[in-house]
Every structure is written in C-alpha cells, then in structure tokens.
C-alpha cells in the first residue's frame, strides 16, 4: 500500500520530467503536440497532488512512512534520496501543480507563434519537475539540488527572449544574485552534515528539537539556510533581481516569480521551522528581514508605472510578509498566506499579461479604460486585487489577518515592530494595487503601444483575450475568493501541524474581530485613497459632479484635499520624499552594493592580472617569494630547537 503511495508521489515529480525528455528528444519539430504533452503531464501531476492532499486530510497531515533510498554511498558519506509527504508538502504540491497547470494552459495562447514555442514548454516542464522535486525532497542535499535546478530554469526562462539585452542581463543578474544566497545554503548543508552526520530533514528537525545540536551550530545553520531563502525569495537586500526578472514572458512571471519558485524560500524556512524555533536569534533575524522587506517593497510599489513591476514589488512585499510571519512563530499563517498569495498573485500576473496582450505594453500610463473592452480580465483582476488588499471575505484577508495576529501575540519589540510595519503595509498594498487597477482599467484608453512587447500582440482597439487565456483567469479567481475559508475552523492548521513535532504544534488562533475590522478599514482606506487620486481625476467632470458633488466640493475645494493628496502628500512627500528616496536607495545603494561587490572583485582581479606581465623573471620572483614566505612562516611558527 505504502509502496503504491510512494510510487504516486514519485509520479508527481516524474510526469513533467518525462514530458521534458519527450519534448527534447522526440517532439522538437511538433510544437502543438509538445504543448499538449506538457499540459497532460502537469494535469497528471495536479490530479495526483489532489489525491495526495485528500490522503493527507484523512491522516490529519501526518507524514507518510516512506523510507529514504540510497543514492550514493561514499565512504562515511551517504547521499540518500527519497520523497517526503505530509500535510504541508501536499498543500505545496497542490499550489505548484495547479498554478503550473493554469500557466501551461494560458501559455498555449500567449506564446502562440513564438519561434521557441517548443523550448518554452520544455523549460516549463523541467521547472515543474524541479519544483515538485524540491517540495517532495526528504533531505537537504536533494532539496539543494532541486533548489539550484529551479534557479537554472528561472535563468533560462527570464532570458527566454535572449535577443533582448534587458532580458539577458536580467537573467544573469537573477542567476548570480540568487546564487550569492545559495552558496551560504550549501555551506550550511555542509555544516549540518559535519555536525549531525545526516541530511535527512526529519532527523535534523528531531535533533534540533531535542537539543542535541549546540545553539551556535543551529543558529549558523539557520542563518545559512535563511541566506539561501533571502536570495530565492527576493528578500531585502537581495531582492534586486526580481523586478528585473519581469523581462521574462508573463506566464513565467506568474508561475516562477510570483507563485512558486520565489515562495521556495518561504517553503524552505517553514520546512526547517523546528530548527529555526530552536534559535531565537535566527527567528528574530527572519522576522526583521521579513518586515523590512515587506515595508520597503510596498513603498516602492507605489511609484512604479510598469504594471508588472508593481506586481513584482508586491510579490517581494508579500513574501516579506510570509517571512515576518515565520519569524514571529506564525507557521500556519505564513503557509496559509503563501497558499492564498500563490493564487491571487498568479491571477494578477496572468491578468497583466492579458492586458498587455491587447495593448502591447506593460506601461500603465499607455493603458486606461480597459474595463469596458475586457470585462472578464477586469473582473478577475479586481478580485485578485481585493484579495491582495486583504478585504473581507477574499482569501488574502484571512491569512493576512492571521499574520498580523501572530505578530501581535508574539509581543516584545520584535513582535510590535513587525505588527506596526505589517499594518502600514496593509495600507500601502491596498493603495498601490488599486492605483494600478484604476490607471489600467478606468478612464479613457490611451492607445497602447504597437511596437513594444514581443510580437504582433498590440492592435488598434482593445479587445478581450481569447478564452484559453481568460479561462485560467476565471479558474484562478475561484480560489482567490474561496481559499481563505480553508482555515476558518482550523482545518488547514491541523493539516499543516501534522508536519511538526507534537510539542511545536500551534493552537488555532481564530479570528480577532477587532483586529480584523481594523485591518480591513486600513485596507479600505488605501483603496479609497487610490480611488480619489487616480480615478476621480480622470473621470469626466460631469459624471464626477453628478455622483460625488457633496464630497467633491467638501474634500477637494474646501479642504483643498486634491493638492494635499496628489500635490503635496503623494507627489511631494510620498513620491518625491519617502518612496522616491527609497527607490533611489534601492537603485543606488543596494543595487550599487551588489554591483559594487562585482566591481570590487573585477578590480582586485585586474590588479593581480597586472602582475602577470609576461616577464619570466617576474614569474620566477613570485615563485621564490612564495616559497620563502611559506618557509619563513614555518620556521617562525615552529622555531627549530
């Protein structure tokens, strides 16, 4: 029985892998069939994931008794491989395969006619295989290997239109910046193996929980792992790659850079949560980095004009939110938010792709008024936005609320700092996403752009996208509304807690009505501000006068609120001051530091390159000098008696 179940678990991972191999080896000349095969493989993975989830629900999320197999036995080093299935991984599998399925589906239309259509589906298959492998891995080494593989897929897919210099540069930047985090992860893997002699996650968790590993080692390990997560999940200060990664095709942004791969960092920290729990210092670092990221990215999202970049910063901010939650001990809340975020953010990205499909651009200033031409896209986009803004009863509301509640309950300066930044982020999030909604879909159409984008998508009059693109939007809108109810009676929490050692399981927090109401009001305030700022100023004066006469007169004329909001508060203080400042800081200081590290390395390299001056005797001199220095150290350290 368990053998069957393990086989099914393996099949989730191998179906897309087989599809990748089939496409590369056989279907290179048959683009249509390649697309079908990729879709079918993900569908199989999705169905099996649903099966896995249902099994786990019946088991209350307890881990399946699968055993690790031996991959390589190298002296004292045994490299195992095996799958691990518990409530948490089942949820992640459903997230990954369902979003992947929607994206596969959607891409058949979006990528139609692209000269590398076949390659695109090959990469998507490889990515889906690697991502499910990452989720299923039962040991840190295998996890690391898949972790790097999804990085390679991300590199290939960001740089998919590699003839565009921006795409190629973005791909390279993403690869290198995330690898900068990854190397600490690998070092942490080496460390934990040296100290415990195992790669198995469950064993490491037990050892850490039982206090068998010293706190210093745990903290170092946790920080190394977190450094990997910082890179992959685009946390401050390694977040710089994600906005640039938007140069990739939009379905890729939806799948990899919104729903799944970037969430891998959160997944990793959550997976090793018992280890983090054993080190208060590491937890605080996670909380503070998460809160800072959430806040900084949200403020930057406010000033972006490219709709995909707004969504990219939003993703960074929301990932920070999840990290914040993990850092304050809100394990269930973080994963719950991850789940909800995956659906509504994928929805928003695919929506932005649909918009650009008709307008040929991602620049919101060239859009406007699209709600009449694209009613389906508009409706689903608004649902996603409401969910992101955390408005009752959309899914984002439930998880965001649990995150804030967790921070409040954590207390201490870390908890309250996280809570207050989190509350600010609620406001900013609602503001920037509805700013995007109003600029894109309301007002008059501003013409789009024919030449931009990657082909013949732009056209004169805006129109709704084909059903194969709208379908996934509608399908994703359903969980964006409903997935929040999963934890209303703590069922989701029970499922996830099954993955934890019994002592660490958390009680269901329930809903704090006061807090929930407050955060919804804050969110609505953000929406309202966006509405006043971006919708009213473009709606015709007649309609404006008819509908909003009293408020308009009161707010705008008497209190001169328009100048205050748009002119002073928004443009001067918010735009010119805080946000532009942060954007500037981001671009120059943080980006600069990343580039600077590269430049320093290059400079050091060039200095030493000069020593290589082609002169034999200079070479001989360095050789003798090296020998003499080593001999000198040897004789000084060990004086001859």
């Amino acid at each position, binding site marked *: 029985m368990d053998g069957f179940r393990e086989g099914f678990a393996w099949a989730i991972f191998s179906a897309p892998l087989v599809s990748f191999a089939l496409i590369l080896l056989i279907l290179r000349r048959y683009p249509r069939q390649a697309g079908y095969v990729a879709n079918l493989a993900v569908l199989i993975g999705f169905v099996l994931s649903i099966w896995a989830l249902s099994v786990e629900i019946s088991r209350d999320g307890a881990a399946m008794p699968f055993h690790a197999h031996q991959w390589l036995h190298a002296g004292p080093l045994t490299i195992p491989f095996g799958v691990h299935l518990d409530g948490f991984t089942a949820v992640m599998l459903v997230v990954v395969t369902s979003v992947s399925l929607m994206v596969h589906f959607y891409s058949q239309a979006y990528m139609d006619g692209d000269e590398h259509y076949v390659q695109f589906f090959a990469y998507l298959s490889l990515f889906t295989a690697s991502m499910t492998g990452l989720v299923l891995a039962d040991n840190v080494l295998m996890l690391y290997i898949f972790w790097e593989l999804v990085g390679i897929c991300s590199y290939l897919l960001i740089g998919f239109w590699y003839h565009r210099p921006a795409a190629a540069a973005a791909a390279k930047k993403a690869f290198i910046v995330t690898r900068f985090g990854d190397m600490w992860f690998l070092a942490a893997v080496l460390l934990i193996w040296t100290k415990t002699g195992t790669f198995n996650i469950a064993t490491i968790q037990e050892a850490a929980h039982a206090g068998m590993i010293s706190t210093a080692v745990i903290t170092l390990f946790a920080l190394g792992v977190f450094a990997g997560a910082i890179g992959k999940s685009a946390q401050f200060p390694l977040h710089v790659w994600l906005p640039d990664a938007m140069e990739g095709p939009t379905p890729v942004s939806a799948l990899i850079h919104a729903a799944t791969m970037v969430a891998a960092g959160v997944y990793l920290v959550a997976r090793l949560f018992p280890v983090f729990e054993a080190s208060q210092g590491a937890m605080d670092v996670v909380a503070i980095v998460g809160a800072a990221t959430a806040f900084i990215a949200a403020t930057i999202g406010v000033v972006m004009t490219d709709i995909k970049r707004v969504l990219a910063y939003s993703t960074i901010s929301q990932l920070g939110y999840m990290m914040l939650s993990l850092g304050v001990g809100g394990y269930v809340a973080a994963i719950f938010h991850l789940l909800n975020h995956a659906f509504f953010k994928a929805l928003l990205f695919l929506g932005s792709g649909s918009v650009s499909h008709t307008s040929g651009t991602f620049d919101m200033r060239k859009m406007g008024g699209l709600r009449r031409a694209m009613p389906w896209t508009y409706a689903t986009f608004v649902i996603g936005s409401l969910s992101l803004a955390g408005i009752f009863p959309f899914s984002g509301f439930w998880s965001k609320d649990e995150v804030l509640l967790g921070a409040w309950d954590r207390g201490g300066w870390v908890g309250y700092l996280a809570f207050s930044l989190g509350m600010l982020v609620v406001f900013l999030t609602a503001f920037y996403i509805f700013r995007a909604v109003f600029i894109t879909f309301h007002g008059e159409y501003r013409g789009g752009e024919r030449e931009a984008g990657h082909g013949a998508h732009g056209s004169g009059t805006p129109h709704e996208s084909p059903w194969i693109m709208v379908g996934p939007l509608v399908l994703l809108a359903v969980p964006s509304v409903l997935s929040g109810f999963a934890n209303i009676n703590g069922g989701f929490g029970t499922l996830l807690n099954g993955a934890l050692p019994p002592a660490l399981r958390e009680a269901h927090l329930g809903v704090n009505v006061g807090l929930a109401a407050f955060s919804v009001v804050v969110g609505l305030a953000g929406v309202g501000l966006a509405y006043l700022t971006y919708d009213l100023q473009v709606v015709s004066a007649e309609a404006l006068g008819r509908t909003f006469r009293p408020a308009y007169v009161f707010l705008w004329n008497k209190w001169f609120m328009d100048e205050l909001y748009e002119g002073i508060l928004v443009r001067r203080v918010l735009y010119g001051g805080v946000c532009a400042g942060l954007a500037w800081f981001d671009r120059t200081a943080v980006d600069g530091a990343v580039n600077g590290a590269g430049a320093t390395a290059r400079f050091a390299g060039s200095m030493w390159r000069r020593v290589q001056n082609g002169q034999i*005797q200079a070479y001989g001199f360095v050789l003798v000098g090296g020998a003499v220095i080593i001999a000198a150290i040897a004789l000084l350290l060990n004086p001859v008696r």
Partner: protein
Amino acid sequence: MIPLDQVLVFSGILFALGVYGVLTRRNAIAILMSVELMLTAVNTNFIAFGVFHRPSLAVGLVFAVFVITVAAAEVGLALAIILRIYRQRTTANVDEVDILKW
C-alpha cells in the same frame, strides 16, 4: 674529512647564487647556466648526504648521476627552443619575450 655542515653551507651558497642568477640575468642562456649552478648545489647535497648516511649504498651518488643526465637533456632542449626564439626575434633576452601576458 670535511664536516657535513660545511658542505651544506657551501651548497647553500651555490644554490643561492644560482637563484640570484635566474632572477637577474636577462640572457636566456645565462639563466640556464644559473639553473645548472643550482643543480650542482643539489648534487653536492646528494653526494654529501649519501656519504654521511650510508656510503655503501651509494643512493646519493646514483641520484646525482641521474640529475646530471637529466639536466644535460634539459639543456639540450632549452637551447633548441632558445635558438628558435633567436631566429624569430633575433634576441635571446627573456625580458623582450613578452607577447603573452595578462
């Protein structure tokens, strides 16, 4: 019989002179001669240590003979290469041979 440490001091000085020559002489052939000087120091060492340890086994002497043989072959090869460089560039000065760098 000469004490061992005096021989070692002698070979040390010889070796240092050789190193100095390799690092300062510009002419490739002079550099080769300096390397030979270093090898002479090596041979002195081998012979001295060999006699000091176990004269009957003659390991040091055998080693020295082989070093001399190999060195002779090495010089032959080096001279051939230097000759070629000289034909191409009419110089045997190593500081003028620096197309390859950085």
